């Protein structure tokens, strides 16, 4: 008996820490989501799960607007980052002089914190003093502030996010390319295939697993973390034009102090991310099985 319990005994400190930092916040979030918790009015309390769900999912068009904004941003950034990352990976896959010298520069944006990235781009997009506004003025577009227009605020955010996270795609895809066996490429060359045919018919199909993993990982990450850059660049504005679910959860919890509504938004994100992770896990397990 003691022998059987011994591994559990040794594992227990780690398990306790893990439970306290993962399970407790989750249980507490469930508690918040099912009660009325308003920091500025502690008198309003009590079980109110159905009311809370109705408020967020039925009575607040804001939730669905934020969901749409999140999806638009996620699809836009992941698509662009994948396409650009693939092009850059293919570029760095070939041998050329100075490759090792310039490669680190392409990785630099990824090393910066999103707050710094947001601040840099906010200044670049500033309608009065920003470099972009200056360039637009040079081509005849006067008085334009990208982040002040609902139609272009999302474009500005996409540009900043793509600038920061394309290197992540580049790294994953380049690693995938370098891990491919050489013989199919050599055979294709012997058969007279051109570079585009080799890329389309040999490289891309062989890279499919790494591409799916990279896209899924980045999708999960973008969905989850579409907050810092937006908070700094537009704070969800103008109006609510760039308010994602993460920004909404923050605003409901820490600006409006509706902790229960913030918890529901955050938990809904958790459900979506869990589904994505399940898909990723299933895919990875499937690959191992194969």
């Amino acid at each position, binding site marked *: 008996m003691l022998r059987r319990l011994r591994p559990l005994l040794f594992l227990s400190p780690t398990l306790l820490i893990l439970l306290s930092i993962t399970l407790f916040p989750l249980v507490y979030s469930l508690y918040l989501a099912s009660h009325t918790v*308003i920091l500025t009015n502690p008198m*309003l309390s009590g079980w109110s799960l159905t009311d809370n769900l109705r*408020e967020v999912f039925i009575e607040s068009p804001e939730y669905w607007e934020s969901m749409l904004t999140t999806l638009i941003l996620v699809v836009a950034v992941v698509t662009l980052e994948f396409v650009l990352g693939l092009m850059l990976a293919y570029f760095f896959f070939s041998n050329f002089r100075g490759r090792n010298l310039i490669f680190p520069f392409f990785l630099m944006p990824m090393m910066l914190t999103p707050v710094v990235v947001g601040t840099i781009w906010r200044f670049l997009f500033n*309608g009065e003093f920003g470099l972009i506004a200056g360039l637009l003025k040079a081509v005849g577009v006067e008085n334009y502030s990208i982040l002040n227009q*609902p139609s272009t605020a999302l474009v500005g955010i996409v540009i900043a996010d793509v600038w920061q996270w394309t290197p992540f795609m580049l790294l994953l895809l380049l690693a995938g390319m370098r891990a491919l066996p050489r013989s199919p490429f050599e055979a294709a060359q012997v058969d007279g295939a051109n570079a585009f045919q080799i890329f389309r018919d040999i490289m891309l199909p062989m890279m499919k697993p790494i591409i799916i993993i990279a896209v899924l990982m980045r999708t999960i990450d973008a969905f989850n973390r579409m907050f810092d850059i937006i908070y700094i660049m537009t704070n969800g504005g*103008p109006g609510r034009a760039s308010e994602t679910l993460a920004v909404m959860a923050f605003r409901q919890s820490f600006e409006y*102090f509706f902790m229960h509504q913030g918890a529901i938004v955050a938990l809904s994100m958790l459900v979506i991310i869990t589904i994505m992770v399940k898909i990723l896990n299933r895919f990875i397990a499937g690959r191992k099985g194969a």
Partner: protein
Amino acid sequence: MKRDTKEMMNAFGKAMASRLGFLEEVSTSRREFLRNSSLMAAGFAAASMGGAVIAPRIARAEGWTLAEAAKPYAGATVRVSNLAGYPHNDFMRPLIADFEKETGIKIQIDTVQYGEAVGKHMQLLATGSDEYDLFNIDSIWFPGYAPYMEPLTGFMADAKLMDPSFDYADLSEECQKTNSYLDQVYMFSNMYTFPILAYRRDWYAESNLKAPVTWKELYDQAAQFSKDGKYGYVIHGLRTAMMEMVTIPYLSMGGTVFDDYLHPTFSQPPENFEKAKQAMQLIRDIYQNKLTPPGSLDFELGEASAAYAQGNIAMNLNWAIIFAVQEDAKQSKVAGKNAYAWAPTGYDTPAPNGEVTGGYTRLASFGLSISKTSKNKEAAYLFSQWLSSPAIQEKIVVAGDSAPSRIKLLEKYTDKYGHFPILLEATKLVGKKLWDAPKIANERQWEDTVAIAFQDCMIGKIGVEEAIVKADKDVAKLMRQYGFYKGDNEYPKSVTSNFKGTAKVELL
């Protein structure tokens, strides 16, 4: 405690809190009863005050010195969360070494951006953090902080701590009022501010114009100046400023923001709706017709002032607190080139005899409030008192501050800044034509809700009428969620801060 007695007390506390409209549901614990009872007492206090200024008991000890008072606390470190970017805070910094030297108390200051301050502060306070002893608070947000802060009234009555030369009565009446809550004083003002129109004296002289007295005149002048890379006006369009950007003209036309039941009144009664439409249309036209810099939907008062200081804007309706920046030749191209005037009144017709047709927006003040969790409350009190004392406030004004909280300093240094006479005159508006934001914990949230509707209008997402109705609807929904409309109570003037009785409107 016997069960019957406990139940009776709970029922009593619950009933009274419900009557006051603060309570939706309560548990029956003793703790809850105590909370309810305190709230009930607080509600009565608010109702009985009727917006009056509190007269705290002030100790006056002979021979009091700061060094002697601070002796028991020497070696303590007082941590302050200060608001960034405000000139009076910058002028205060070099003087802190004197306080530290005299008292042996160390002052450690962190800064936080205005727009983020309430969120960050509330997270700390609500979780019982003792990270800061003092919080720099805009008085408009104070009711939200109140449950977590320590009243100063007890310290003021303590002869060992109270500086007899402090001259509490010299703080403007509005500063005293806005830094008190219910029957307690919570902060000493170290700054007092009011929106004043700064305009380019040189441009106006060249164009043979006078400062606008109506909003239509302001628009026409702004349009006249907006050419060749110049702008006529500068809007503060950030979410934290947008509500006031529209309500300043709206109030001056005679509009009201809430009725006495805290029902929002931008869209009703019909005369309010007309004024709100005129005010919203005016600000939207200024933005859409490019009479303001293109990025001004991102401007708070600091950014607006910085843009004005570049020298290509004609008018800057801004808070007096920030004028020190534009009058500083090191930071501004327009230093010494400005004149100051009251904000316009009325849409196209000034009121007879120079009186305003409606009201003015609030006088605001900032101060330092002590956290209940602070372990250095007395040391923190001494620092806060020292900072707002006549001698230090005078040093700060001499150094360049443009928004002193003391009446005697405004009188003594009338000529230092062009806007000081207006600032002084504005103190006389208290209780007459001055709209103050309701003293409720959810001030920031309803302002933000209005700002979202107004910003949507500015960017053309929705029309003017739709924005005004949306603002009222969304605020009503929000206030209902916060539990305000239980029992359909009329709120006392000390809560609504309405300077005139406002007829009840239907909730949207």
